[in-house]
């Protein structure tokens, strides 16, 4: 009788310990997530840092054109090395980025040029694909994105949709939570979005996974107050 009691007790004991551990760990993770979100909303450095390794996610067509417009006015010597990622189905974007990088080289400005690499990634959702089959393709895209992110571990991420950038941003956010790598994530919503954020933009905004989100129309700024409106790129 007595031994049965103690057996029961020890079983309850280990159960309690397990519950305590789970509660403790999830509390810590939750606190860490809130800290990361809080810290991400504040400027990163108080003084001039060195160049930052930068991941540039190219959407396709119009998205890529907008991103290249932004890169054209950025001071590239601050953002190197640069890693370009585009969807595996998109042949044009990386080519356009290469042309831009080559023109930097031709200016014979070694400072600015730095090193740049170009990679392709599986897309989580093609234009017109149903939301249901998107689940399977998203898992594949996530795994591939994780592999690329482990290799790159960027300090800055620039993206402007569509879906290609979401897995990369989610992984970057997890890296921040886990303390693997701190990165500043910037998302510029496409100029085509006037009244509503895109699905990618909305997800990243609601989940607070990006440090700063830019919109290109004042209507969107009033609808999503945490977004920044500083004019149009095109």
């Amino acid at each position, binding site marked *: 009788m007595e031994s049965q009691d103690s057996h029961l007790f020890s079983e309850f004991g280990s159960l309690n310990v397990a519950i305590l551990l789970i509660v403790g760990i999830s509390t810590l993770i939750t606190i860490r997530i809130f800290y990361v979100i809080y810290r991400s909303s504040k*400027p*990163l*450095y*108080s*003084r*001039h*840092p060195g160049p*930052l390794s930068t991941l540039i996610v190219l959407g396709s*067509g*119009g998205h890529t*054109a*907008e991103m290249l*417009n*932004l890169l*054209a*006015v*950025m*001071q590239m010597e*601050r953002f190197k090395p640069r890693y370009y990622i585009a969807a595996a189905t998109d042949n044009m974007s990386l080519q356009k980025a290469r042309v831009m990088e080559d023109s930097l080289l031709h200016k014979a400005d070694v400072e600015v040029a730095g090193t740049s690499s170009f990679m392709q990634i599986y897309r989580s959702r093609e*234009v*017109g694909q149903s939301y249901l089959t998107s689940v399977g393709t998203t898992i594949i895209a996530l795994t591939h994105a994780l592999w690329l992110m482990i290799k790159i571990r960027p300090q*800055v991420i*620039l993206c402007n949709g569509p879906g290609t950038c979401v897995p990369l941003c989610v992984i970057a956010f997890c890296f921040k939570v886990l303390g693997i790598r701190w990165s*500043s994530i*910037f998302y*510029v919503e*496409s*100029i*085509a*979005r*006037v*009244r*509503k954020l*895109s699905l990618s933009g909305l997800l990243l905004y609601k989940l607070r996974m990006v*440090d*700063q989100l*830019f919109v*290109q*129309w004042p209507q969107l700024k009033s609808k999503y107050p945490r977004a*920044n409106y*500083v*004019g*149009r*790129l*095109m």
Partner: protein
Amino acid sequence: MGEADDSSKSKRVVFVTVGTTSFDSLVRAVDTGEVREALFKKGYTHLLIQMGRGSYIPLKHAGGDESLSVDYFTFSSSIAEFLKSASLVISHAGSGSIFESLRLRKPLIVVVNEDLMDNHQSELAEELAERKHLFCARPQTLYDTISAMDSESLVAYQPGDATPVAKFIDRYLGFTDE
């Protein structure tokens, strides 16, 4: 020689572009007798259609003094050249082709494809139409839009500037301009 000059001066091309996919209902809409006639009445002499992967093949016309000349092709790497030489652009609602035409200050009719699943494209075209930078139509209202349009009423688009975004990012990361 004076005659040749005249004819080259009076060549006014309408360039239709559907972009990288297909947009049969647009090609079908420009290929109707009433639209061709309306364009001819407005003083256009040539209709050139970039039809992409579409399956609807428009009728070619030699044209002349009485009617519009019509020609088409599927894809070209020099869309920019066609846009430059056009007097009127009729385009799908993709932002790339919209802003390229606006930058070239071409009178522009954007036709929204209502068959697309995630149809956010009308947002941009409607906003820019409200600001009088272009005309916005659907395939079935293209004829009315062409008949009613007055390209003088359009306001030139002031291109945007990415510098404020770049500056914001710089400041956020602690880069200061000194």
